[in-house]
């Protein structure tokens, strides 16, 4: 990919193409755009004889590019983990303007948003086996059935092939949206399942947002965030986040789902229109307002019970949490949502490990097999994606295991602040098929799970010590009896 990119840069000779290309950050997009511009150039200068030859070469190169295009369009490349093309599905195109701050912040960060109605009959996530998008935003809570080829299975498959998903639901959340959430380990509350148009919403009579008119305490001001700089950014979110919508609970069987924004202990989930005859099933801190899932393939999913959370109105509104006197000019929503979307779309918290190396101490070549009690050195380079480039990842808790059914060696890797992690240890006195395992799972970061198989053999027959000190009496015995036998033979034969 880089090569083709370079080829265009240097081979074309058109300066402005370079600058044009530079305005795009990712090679894949740049390549596509450049191709277009090339064709335009060729058409424009088609009559010019002097440029005809040049045009031919360009056409040739363009055709190579065309050929390579499917490969370039791979999303989620290891080179550049941040998503680029995002499909936004809406119930109503009005959301585009009512939530424009959020969308504009995405656009300004370089995302390519494709707005479509959820019922659009031409909807499709992939074509010719290639995904057209890197991310999907479902702002269509009430959709019963997607248009086109999109359905529950294809959305889940999209996630399972490493793409990201944001779901904004509200009290009108349809079965389809709920099913997607359930598959991701989150159960939206449906306390009154009979009336879909008026599902249970989160109500909190102590930490609601103080406002002029409303009195039903469904606009919740929550500041119970997950404690993770990686997910929510380093800057602390000072103002509470406004939330209006349905709550959800996490499926206890799912170990990958995380509560990002939880309700206060006094919250509960109930239907406003019906009389509460029995205690609500979902109460207190069990209610999660916003959750994220990082799947095993590092696809990230954001599930919010409130679509309004992303709206301009709540972004801009001032907030005062009930029971407190501090009134913030602006709610924490914008910061919260922006930071969270950066995490979701892999602008932050993405690690990669490269150059896993191991060799015997004092050597450089990687052996096919170790011997017991060998001294070895292990190193790996870990980098973190900063949104634009790979920066060395610095941590002091990366560990390597030398593993055969259970870890025989567990060592913390030391690092040189430049991304290189290394350690050395002695192979245990046990033979078998071992693995170098790095299982690095930290909150917010993509999980690193490296394993490299390496057999460990016992000593060869000629690698044992030839003479053991403890055995000297035996050597003495055998040699003396040999000598004795010899002397005896001489005497016996010649001394008659």
């Amino acid at each position, binding site marked *: 990919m880089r090569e083709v990119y370079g080829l265009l840069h240097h081979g074309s000779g058109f300066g402005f193409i370079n600058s044009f290309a530079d305005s795009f950050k990712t090679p894949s997009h740049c390549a596509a755009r450049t191709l277009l511009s090339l064709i335009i150039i060729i058409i424009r200068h088609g009559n010019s004889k002097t440029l005809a030859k040049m045009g031919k070469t360009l056409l040739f190169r363009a055709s190579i590019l065309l050929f390579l295009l499917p490969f370039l369009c791979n999303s989620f490349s290891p080179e550049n983990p941040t998503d680029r093309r995002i499909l936004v599905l809406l119930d109503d195109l009005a959301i585009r303007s009512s939530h424009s701050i959020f969308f504009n912040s995405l656009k300004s960060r370089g995302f390519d948003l494709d707005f479509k109605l959820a019922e659009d009959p031409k909807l499709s996530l992939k074509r010719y086996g290639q995904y057209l998008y890197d991310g999907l935003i479902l702002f269509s809570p009430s959709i019963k059935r997607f248009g086109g080829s999109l359905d529950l299975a294809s959305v889940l498959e999209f996630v399972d092939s490493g793409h990201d998903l944001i779901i904004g639901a509200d009290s009108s959340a349809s079965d389809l949206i709920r099913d997607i959430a359930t598959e991701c380990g989150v159960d939206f509350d449906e306390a009154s399942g009979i009336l879909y148009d008026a599902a249970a919403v989160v109500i909190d009579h102590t930490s609601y947002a103080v406002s002029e008119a409303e009195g039903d305490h469904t606009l919740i001001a929550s500041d119970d965030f997950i404690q993770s700089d990686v997910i929510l950014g380093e800057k602390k979110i000072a103002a509470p986040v406004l939330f209006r919508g349905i709550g959800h609970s996490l499926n206890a069987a799912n170990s990958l789902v995380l509560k990002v924004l939880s309700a206060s202990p006094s919250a509960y989930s109930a239907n406003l229109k019906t009389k509460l005859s029995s205690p609500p099933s979902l109460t207190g801190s069990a209610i999660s307002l916003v959750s994220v899932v990082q799947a095993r393939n590092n696809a990230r999913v954001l599930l919010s019970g409130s679509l309004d959370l992303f709206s301009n109105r709540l972004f801009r509104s001032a907030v005062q949490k009930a029971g407190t006197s501090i009134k913030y000019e602006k709610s924490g929503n914008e910061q919260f949502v922006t930071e969270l979307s950066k995490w979701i779309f892999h602008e932050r918290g993405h690690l990669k490990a490269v150059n896993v190396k191991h060799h015997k101490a004092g050597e450089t070549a990687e052996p096919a097999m170790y011997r017991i009690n060998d001294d070895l050195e292990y190193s790996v380079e870990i980098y973190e994606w900063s949104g634009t480039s790979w920066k060395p990842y610095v941590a002091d808790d990366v560990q390597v295991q030398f593993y055969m*059914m259970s870890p025989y060696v567990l060592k913390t890797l030391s690092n040189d602040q430049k991304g290189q992690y290394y350690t050395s240890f002695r192979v245990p006195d046990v033979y078998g098929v071992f693995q170098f395992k790095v299982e690095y799972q930290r909150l917010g970061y993509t999980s690193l799970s490296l394993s490299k198989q390496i057999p460990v053999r016992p000593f060869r027959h000629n690698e044992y010590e030839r003479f053991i000190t403890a055995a000297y009496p035996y050597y003495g015995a055998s040699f003396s009896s040999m000598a004795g036998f010899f002397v005896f033979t001489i005497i016996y034969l010649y001394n008659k």
Partner: protein
Amino acid sequence: MGGKHESANGLKAPISTPTPPAHVSLRPDFFPNLKSLKLKTKQQELLLRVTTLCLVYLLAFIIRLFSVLRYESMIHEFDPYFNYRTTLFLTRHGFYEFWNWFDSESWYPLGRIIGGTLYPGLMVTAAFLYWVLRFLRFAVNIKDVCVLTAPFFASNTTLVAYFFGKEIWDSGCRHRRGRPHRHLPWVHLAVGRRVAVNTGSLAWALGSAFGYFYMVSAWGGYVFIINLVPLYVLVLLITGRYSMRLYVAYCTMYVLGMLLAMQIRFVGFQHVQSGEHMAAMGVFFLMQVFYFLDWVKHLLSDTKLFQDFLRITVTCAVSVGGLALGVGMASGFISPWTGRFYSLLDPTYAKDHIPIIASVSEHQPTAWSSFMFDYHILLFLFPAGLYFCFKRLSDATIFIVMYGLTSLYFAGVMVRLILVATPAVCLISAIAVSATVKNLTTLVRTKSKVIHTGSSKGTASAKTSAKASLDQSLPFQRNGAIALLVGAFYLLSRYATHCTWVTSEAYSSPSIVLAARGAHGGRVIFDDYREAYFWLRQNTPPDAKVMSWWDYGYQITAMGNRTVIVDNNTWNNTHIATVGRAMSSYEDEAYEIMHSLDVDYVLVVFGGVTGYSSDDINKFLWMVRIGGGVFPVIKEPDYLVNGEFRVDKGAAPKMLNCLMYKLCYYRFGELTTEYGKPPGYDRARGVEIGNKDVKLEYLEEAFTTSNWIVRIYKVKPPSNRW
């Protein structure tokens, strides 16, 4: 299990080539030109001997080729694939690499030190033959060398047996039988030691020590020899047949044989440390005591004094020996007997304590019918031979009698040990036939006044002729003798036919390729094993780990070239039990076990479609037993209904939902196997299965062979979002 070339069902019937002695008169026109040449009787005899031997040699070779000719030149059984694979490695990488080979492809993740856990004799022999042939510019394939080594050695065995028989019975014994049973030429080489005892020569003892070394290097069954020989020596001592010859032969053989055997890494210090070898050592020390006493007796003239001395010495020796043994056992220096050895002495031991030994079909007690089947007339001739042996008791016959009786006992305990008994049974029967026929021919000849040839000589024949002349008064004696001779000839020829038939029908069907008769009588070949292994080889990642029951381990590594969890070298019972546990657990529990073992594929053998009965469902109870032996969570009664093993609707619920059941019967409920039967009719068990709607959650079907005999499943990665 290590050092066999072809085994599994590994029995080979003894084959005899009946060549009645003194048959010059019986077949006069057979060698007309010889007659015209007027060869001397001695020369005739020699010629006959050589011709017969050559024929026997050929027959022994040819009879082993049934499976090769009917199917193809390939290794047909389960275990020999290991020998094949290691021989291949040996020829490719040389002896030192072989000796130090650490195999990371079997027993994952423990690995196996091949060089230290095998009896290298067979592989080295095959590789040596290969190298010799290559050196002679024969472009042979190592596979063919491996296949043909067995027949070659079978032929050699007959030769050894002939000379052995000749040694035991005087040179008048001319009745030899080719005995191409499977892989026991080694026994004979070791048995060659007897020669040493007879002659008392140091050189022969040395030779027998080397023979013993070769046997140790080839097969774990050497333990039989190392216990038989001391037993024999002990019997000689007790019966007062102690002699200097015995002393020289045994001591040389024991010391040198032990030192040589210790060079085999797998045997190592067992000779001085394991309980099985203690008898040999005890007898060795006993010999020294005997010799010492002999010497003292020689020095002391006073009998009374000697008696006292004897008493003191014997008491001291016995108590010191007992003390040493006790201390050694208690301190753990001398390891106790292994389970396999125990189960030989007490046939019920393995069944109660070590399911993994009891589970092997070769280790089952032998049925009477199989004795009949394999031995045919030998079964009747054997006691007769014993009678003749006792009648002419000598050191040599004592040996053959002891060898025969002990090995016959062991053959009764374990099917596979019929192999060990076969040579002895053949020899003793041969003695019986030889003696009988000689007596009869003597009768025939005395009447017809045929001049005695030099063929019958020695005290024995002198005795028999004397006896014959005593009985001369009986009427119709000559006719009776002729009739009996004809009868014996008939029996022997029937026997030869029977043996050939047995070899061709029962012991030449390979287990890797299955043959059956189709509906129209045509032969149908099920080549599913190789189909599956080939699939594994072509379609799975090179480092994929395959879990299967241990029977198929060697084949998967040799033919599929993939890593296995357990294989036929059952050295680690816990590991096998883990696999057994996985197979008998519910799918989710099994998934965790498989995950901890990094299993990528699971292979099961299923005979429900073809009616192939030695499949994994029929082996399943052994998996449960072996698994339950280590992990008590697996309980055999959970899989049985009223003590009965069933797979139909009445089966135990755990049985219907365990991993093995699910893997075998996945999608089987949709299949109609036999006309007029409901879908899901298991032809191997003859029932309609109980759980037709098998759903797999953690595994997915990867490959099923054309006749469903081998089914391979892929273990799914953990769920992405959970």
